[in-house]
């Protein structure tokens, strides 16, 4: 060190500038875009956020530093008789407007301190990879897939598990829709999501029952900065299903009070797949100009928020409503593949005819927090109503009368309806005691679920759950963190009785009588559970390690306990089992990551054991009375083992070119029961995503320009379980391009994508429609533009 200093002094003319870049938490920020105008040469970049410009002649320079997620920095520098050392603090910028109050640590820091495997993406990522729905936009992340229906709706699948095994948290409150169903999506507006955190792995000890496979935590838009008045507009267009949409956001904040509003509307036509003829259970279906008949839809969402932001206390109200109407693929809804009035359906690709569904989700949430001496107390209280209706022409199934009776009060075309009211309350207290950071909390939820319609699958029910947890994070030293969590839950479910509205012939003692059969009895079940977890983080300069061992659980759903009817999508008769035990899962989870110079590598293996995984088992039986002659699928429990992991490798070849590989693998096997040796349903095949991104540095008025190619190679899935089918491997190429440019000092963002560039015909193993052989969307060009605006000039603002 001494030598270098001396040699620097020895050189009389040429000087150097040493820039140390740190963030708000005094952590070094490596990998920034840094330039010193008018000096030609790039600096030497050390991995710890230190950048050295060598051989500088005396004179005036301008230093510019930029980095995704941070505000840009620039400063005039005069080099004279000596070397200069300059510390620079970069401030995060998570809003499209530069004025924003930052509540969170940077992403890297949070990953370092979280014991579970965590992926965090921001609205930039969604904008860049915009899919038909929020989850489809996130599908690029390793270990994250979706169970989708068509082009506009999907549900999360984390490491091959979805439905009630993944919790979705929206604005701090568990999102409660009809999680059990595969034929509709998540009632979330993807334009309103500012930041999304995906926890891969058992997380019941934080989020309660259902987070047995992971959690998707959707954070609302960040608070606008004090004394601001602005907004943004987002415009979207897609070619495959002729989608157009817009989302408008406006906010206003004084020093301590704020209001914000957002409205989103989208309208789309039938989606197109590269196919002219499909075979659904051997029934041939001809497609008109490759359109999947009646998969059009529309969506209208409105959101309002407002509240008080003080130094020690804040309280924010959120009011939102999402509404969607979308068609079901007309040829495959009912007890058998259907011949439809093709002339009627093919007249327009935009109309929504029967069968279709309407889903409305209303939310009212209050989030408040207060700081009392050392305690941070947080509260979330929420009310949600989820109302989903399936409309279809009356078709008698089994012993239903051939003509719908006039005496019925249920509308003739209302096949099914689910109306759910949910009240939630979370209270948490965080406190720091020396090296410990303790968190104590309580979660409670009350649900009422009512049903309607002329067909029956799931009974109506009430459910109450309450959970308490204690979480301790201990900082052993600068490098190591220990975590321990313990949770107790109690839940009660009450299933309401249900009998058919029509008589069926029942044989008793050789005599046949006409009886309205009972499909659900009055059932009450209570469940108790203790879950917990221990974990460690160990962070060195280039290496981050984390490991976690834990137990999670999930209470059986009303469908698993009480289903007793025909599932029209799968042409099956589903029967619940009132004796099911809560599902338990033991999981080991680790992540090792390494970042040095141009390389970053992350490996996240996991191992998972279920002593009693709940599984819908297709039996060899048929049922004529309850199941209209369909094959009986029965809920059972089996021992299941799962393991796999994700590997991410990134190589920053040059400042403007990077290559990335994301690899994921999953293996699952049932160790007991009828399907011993088989996998579990919806197990994604291994896949690799190869990416090349070019982001030029000097691009004139355009900033942060990127051109990126994703090439996904998916292996065949031959590990299947009835009623699945083997899926062949495929490769799909997506191309993304975009950047930012200034419109009146605001950074407008433009993104263009070509999804499935080569119009490849492929089947996605985790698609809901895969079972009936519907291929995925063909080529789709997606254009989206986001333009922020500001109603105040800087003078007015200050």
């Amino acid at each position, binding site marked *: 060190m001494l030598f270098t200093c001396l040699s620097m002094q020895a050189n009389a003319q040429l000087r150097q500038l040493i820039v140390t870049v740190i963030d708000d938490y005094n952590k070094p920020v490596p990998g920034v875009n840094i330039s010193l105008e008018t000096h030609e040469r790039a600096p030497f970049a050390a991995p710890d956020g230190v950048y050295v410009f060598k051989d500088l002649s005396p004179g005036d320079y301008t230093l510019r530093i930029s980095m995704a997620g941070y505000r840009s920095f620039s400063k005039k520098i005069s080099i004279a008789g000596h070397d200069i*050392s300059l510390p620079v603090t970069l401030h995060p910028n998570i809003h499209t407007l530069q004025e924003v109050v930052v509540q969170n640590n940077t992403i890297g820091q949070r990953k370092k301190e979280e014991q579970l495997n965590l992926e965090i993406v921001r609205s930039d990522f969604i904008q860049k990879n915009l899919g038909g729905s929020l989850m489809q936009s996130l599908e690029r992340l390793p270990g994250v897939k979706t169970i989708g229906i068509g082009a506009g709706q999907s549900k999360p699948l984390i490491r091959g598990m979805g439905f009630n095994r993944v919790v979705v948290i929206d604005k701090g409150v568990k999102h409660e829709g009809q999680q059990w169903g595969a034929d509709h999506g998540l009632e979330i507006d993807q334009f309103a999501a500012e930041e999304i955190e995906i926890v891969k792995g058992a997380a019941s000890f934080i989020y309660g029952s259902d987070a047995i496979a992971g959690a998707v935590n959707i954070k609302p838009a960040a608070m606008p900065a004090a004394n601001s008045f602005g907004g943004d507009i987002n415009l979207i267009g897609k070619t495959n299903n002729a989608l157009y949409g817009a989302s408008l956001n406006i906010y206003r904040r004084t020093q301590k009070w704020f209001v914000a509003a957002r409205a989103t509307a989208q309208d789309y036509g039938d989606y197109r797949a590269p196919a002219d003829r499909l075979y659904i259970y051997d029934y041939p279906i001809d497609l008109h100009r490759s359109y999947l008949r009646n998969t059009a839809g529309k969506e209208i969402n409105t959101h309002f928020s407002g509240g008080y932001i003080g130094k020690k206390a804040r309280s924010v109200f959120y009011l939102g409503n999402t509404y969607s109407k979308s068609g079901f693929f007309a040829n495959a809804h009912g007890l058998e593949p259907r011949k439809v009035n093709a002339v009627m359906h093919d007249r327009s690709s935009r109309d929504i005819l029967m069968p279709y569904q309407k889903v409305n989700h209303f939310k009212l949430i209050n989030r408040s927090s207060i700081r009392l001496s050392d305690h941070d107390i947080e509260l979330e209280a929420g009310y949600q109503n989820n109302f989903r209706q399936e409309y279809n022409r009356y078709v008698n199934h089994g012993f239903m009368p051939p003509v719908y009776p006039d005496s019925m009060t249920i509308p003739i075309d209302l096949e099914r309806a689910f109306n759910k009211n949910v009240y939630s309350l979370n209270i948490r207290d965080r406190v720091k005691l020396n090296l410990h950071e303790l968190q104590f909390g309580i979660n409670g939820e009350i649900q009422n679920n009512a049903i309607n319609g002329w067909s029956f699958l799931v009974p109506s029910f009430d459910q109450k759950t309450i959970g308490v947890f204690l979480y301790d994070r201990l900082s052993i030293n600068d490098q190591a963190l220990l975590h321990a969590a313990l949770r107790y839950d109690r839940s009660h479910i009450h299933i309401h009785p249900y009998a058919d509205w029509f008589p069926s012939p029942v044989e008793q003692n050789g005599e046949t009588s006409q009886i309205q059969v009972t499909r659900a009895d009055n059932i009450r079940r209570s469940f108790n559970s203790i879950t917990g977890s221990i974990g460690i983080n160990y962070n060195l300069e280039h290496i981050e390690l984390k490991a976690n061992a834990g137990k999670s659980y999930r209470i059986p759903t009303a469908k698993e306990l009480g289903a007793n009817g025909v599932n029209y999508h799968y042409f099956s008769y589903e029967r619940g089992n009132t004796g099911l035990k809560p599902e338990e899962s033991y999981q080991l989870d680790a992540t090792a990551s390494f970042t040095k110079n141009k390389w970053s590598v992350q490996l996240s293996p996991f191992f998972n054991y279920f002593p009693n995984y709940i599984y819908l088992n297709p039996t060899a039986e048929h049922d004529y009375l309850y199941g209209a002659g369909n094959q009986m699928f029965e809920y059972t429990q089996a021992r299941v083992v799962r393991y796999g992991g994700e590997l991410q490798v990134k190589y920053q070849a040059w400042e403007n070119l990077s290559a990335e590989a994301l690899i994921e693998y999953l293996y699952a096997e049932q160790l007991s029961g009828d399907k011993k040796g088989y996998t579990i349903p919806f197990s994604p095949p291994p896949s690799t995503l190869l990416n090349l991104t070019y982001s030029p540095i000097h691009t004139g008025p355009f900033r942060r320009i990127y051109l990126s190619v994703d090439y996904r190679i998916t292996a065949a899935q031959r590990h299947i379980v009835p009623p699945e089918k083997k899926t062949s491997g495929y490769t799909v190429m997506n191309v993304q391009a975009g950047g930012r440019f200034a419109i009146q000092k605001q950074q407008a963002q433009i993104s263009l994508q070509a999804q499935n560039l080569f119009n490849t015909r492929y089947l996605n193993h985790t698609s809901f429609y895969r079972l009936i052989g519907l291929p995925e969307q063909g080529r789709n060009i997606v254009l989206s533009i986001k333009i922020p605006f500001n109603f105040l000039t800087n003078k007015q603002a200050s």
Partner: protein
Amino acid sequence: MHLRNSFRQGMMDVPSAHQKHKNITMKQQTKMLSALFAILGAAFLMTGCSKNKASIDTEYPTIDVTSSAAFPKQCSELVRGQKFTATILVADNAELGSVSIDIHHNFDHHSHSTEVEECNMGPVKTPAKPLLLVKSIPIASGNKSYTVSEEIEIPADVDPGDYHFMIRVTDKEGWQTLKGLSIKIN
């Protein structure tokens, strides 16, 4: 002047930032890291390759609706007030489960059949008293092939017209195959 002072202060800070992680050397870190990745990588590969176990049955059972013995066939015609014998030939590579047959009206022309041949259809009409028959037929365990022979009586008072004759067969593992035939009741 003020600027220069802050630069001097900064200069003092730089070496300390460099020193921060010196307690574990670069070499040690690299060693630890290679060991770790070797272990994790090996574990990852091992789990990925240990798949050679007793193969599971993924074959669907079959229904033969074209053999000369099979009845009804696509476009068969049945007569009200008479009995007929449904003869259904099913087979599986391992073990059959059960058969279900279902006769329901197709007065609304709600679907084709699984067969290529199209039959002559009567006009669309509203049902008054259509024939409805749903019947589960168990198959004794251990059978790889089986011929269902089921006598069915068509009541004299049901609506004549286009019907579907649906056959579903499962195997022991729960794989199901279905056939839908278009028939006519006169």
